[in-house]
């Protein structure tokens, strides 16, 4: 029997809060197995017991933190995601950011696909001009992939991808010079994109792309929640306020603090 489940990183108190929000929304329509990678302080926080009561599997591993310029209040511990292959307890895994809120079965359905690894190519941004983002990285125009959602199995192809992801992060400065891009932040999106690009260029493996886009809620948006729904408001100064009722929609909340304040 092939085991299938979700794996997310929830290291630090804010990510534990996000994990609880994520799991609460997920449990409204799915009983799929979920594992959270936590650090060794997690047990000290009340969310740990609540997650445990909801049947979560915990995997303990410690990661380094870095700051994000648009969300300075959140300690961002996301640097261990390249270890997801070794840490996942499942045969087939959906690796997801804790701030990606799953409210429909669409994201889970791809776990049934018989492909070694699938990653997201497009995203669309709520309140922007509806563009499906097809960014490229650096002077080599490496196609941008989003590490928010990665579906993988325990195959050699997946193992090779995660090994390359780690290697890219380890020698990121070299890649920045070689591929001609600059980022003050260590981005998993860049590392995953470069790893996939290199392996495909070497013609060793081919990796699939998710056949749809994921919605991103930009950091300047605010949320209001009641017992039944969550509504997001865009609050940029250059255009009128727009809102969406997020019920049943999957979304990636870039401002973790705003989401936590509304939903906890």
């Amino acid at each position, binding site marked *: 029997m092939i085991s299938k489940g979700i794996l997310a990183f929830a290291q630090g108190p804010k990510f534990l809060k996000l994990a609880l929000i994520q799991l609460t929304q997920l449990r409204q329509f799915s009983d799929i197995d979920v594992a959270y990678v936590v650090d060794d302080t997690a047990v000290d926080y009340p969310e740990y017991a609540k997650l445990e009561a909801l049947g979560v599997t915990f995997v303990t591993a410690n990661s380094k933190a870095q700051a994000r310029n648009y969300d300075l209040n959140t300690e961002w511990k996301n640097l261990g995601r390249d270890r997801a292959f070794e840490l996942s307890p499942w045969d087939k895994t959906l690796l997801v950011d804790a701030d990606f809120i799953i409210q429909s079965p*669409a994201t889970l359905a791809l776990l049934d696909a*018989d*492909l070694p690894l699938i990653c997201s190519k497009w995203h669309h941004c709520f309140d922007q001009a509806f563009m499906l983002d097809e960014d490229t990285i650096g002077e080599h125009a490496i196609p941008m992939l989003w590490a928010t959602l990665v579906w993988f199995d325990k195959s050699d192809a997946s193992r090779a991808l995660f090994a390359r992801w780690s290697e890219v992060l380890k020698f990121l400065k070299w890649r920045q010079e070689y591929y001609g891009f600059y980022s003050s932040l260590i981005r998993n999106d860049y590392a995953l994109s470069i790893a996939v690009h290199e392996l495909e260029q070497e013609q060793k493996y081919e990796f699939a*792309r998710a*056949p*749809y886009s994921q919605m991103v809620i930009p950091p300047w948006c605010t949320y209001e929640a009641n017992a039944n729904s969550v509504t997001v*408001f865009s609050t940029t100064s250059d255009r009128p306020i727009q*809102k969406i*009722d997020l019920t049943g929609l999957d979304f990636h909340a870039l401002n973790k603090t705003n989401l936590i304040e509304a939903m906890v």
Partner: protein
Amino acid sequence: MTEKNVSRSGSWRVTAHALREQFIAENVLVYNGHAFKITQDFLAYIDTLVRNDVTTITVLDSSSIPFLVEDTAEFLKQLLAKHQEATNTLAMAWAARKNDL
């Protein structure tokens, strides 16, 4: 809840777009390990095969991997069921929101 000066037309537009993208995401059938993005063109193509008594055909999935469909009628049945499910979800989601925009 705080009073906000919300743009009705802007909210209508972003809601319609978000629901459409969610509809596309839910309009994917995973069949024998292959993912198929369901479009009206693809549905019509498979329906044509069934109507012309073609029971077995090779098609490309969403990752351009060839897949042998051994029973086109059964495949069409599952495509239609998934498509109708996604369409109904979209219709209900829009109905629940349109009066609040």
